[in-house]
């Protein structure tokens, strides 16, 4: 197979993918959900078939195009309807409340207590003895953890300075 043919196919696939990504919105890259990941894997396989001329370019364009159209249609559906969004993406799962791990949420997310400790260390800088600072920790639909702290555990802000006794004097 001539190198220039591979080059042409790669350029075609690259430009087409770039256009599809550009038109499908930036969320694909920054806020990948589980079905975004599946889409990326399928697209990767389709690219491979095109690069080595295993399928005609038209089949690649139709298959990749329809996948991205479906993805955008689902994303628009999620934007328009909360119920549909929950059905497609799932709901955030509470895994820690008032410093105590919730077994039901952890089982649903297949998290062990060690996994939870690791996530809290990585994403909220919280050691196990600081878990009581957490009001609520969720595993979001994109797999990221979000942590809400109790009021008393939040970092001091400029407005808090005025409340200090020394500031009043």
């Amino acid at each position, binding site marked *: 197979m001539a190198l220039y043919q591979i080059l042409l196919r790669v350029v075609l696939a690259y430009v087409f993918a770039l256009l599809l990504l550009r038109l499908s919105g930036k969320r694909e890259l920054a806020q990948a959900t589980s079905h975004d990941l599946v889409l990326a894997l399928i697209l990767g396989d389709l690219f491979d078939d095109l690069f080595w001329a295993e399928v005609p370019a038209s089949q690649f364009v139709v298959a990749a195009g329809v996948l991205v*159209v479906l993805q955008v249609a689902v994303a628009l559906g999620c934007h328009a309807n909360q119920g549909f969004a929950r059905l497609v993406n799932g709901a955030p799962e509470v895994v820690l409340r008032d410093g105590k791990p919730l077994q039901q949420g952890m089982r649903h997310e297949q998290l062990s207590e060690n996994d939870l400790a690791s996530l809290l260390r990585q994403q909220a800088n919280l050691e196990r003895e600081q878990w009581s600072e957490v009001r609520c920790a969720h595993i979001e639909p994109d797999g990221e953890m979000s942590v809400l702290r109790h009021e008393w555990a939040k970092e001091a802000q400029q407005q808090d300075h005025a409340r200090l006794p020394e500031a009043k004097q």
Partner: protein
Amino acid sequence: MKELSYLLLTIGAALALIGSAIFGLGDATTLVPPPEAVAESFVRELETKRYTRAQSYLSEELAAKTGPATLKELTERLLQRTGKILDVRGEAGWIASERAEAGARLKTELMGEPMLKFSLTRRAGVWSINDLQSIEAAAMH
């Protein structure tokens, strides 16, 4: 909805571009699998016993008289002679307008590296295999 319309337009434009390269400029090897890729894929499908998929590489006329059962029988006879097929590599032959010849070089357990040659025709821009004489000969002798 605007996003979907733009996406559909992009897909349409890409298909139009590919169509004009194939039917307007006569591309037969870049945006469609070249004959040697068709030959290689066909033999790989046979080797992995996916006879229905293998049938899709045959021209309409040949596919009409060569069903998956025939391909299975042919493959089994070929494998009896060659032993296990260890690798398949497509080799370019010649292309003249709507006709071509290409080969699939096999790496086999018992017969070394025999070459299966196929003649191909081009319909609607896509190459398909026109005869199985080479594979029949390799299976018989």
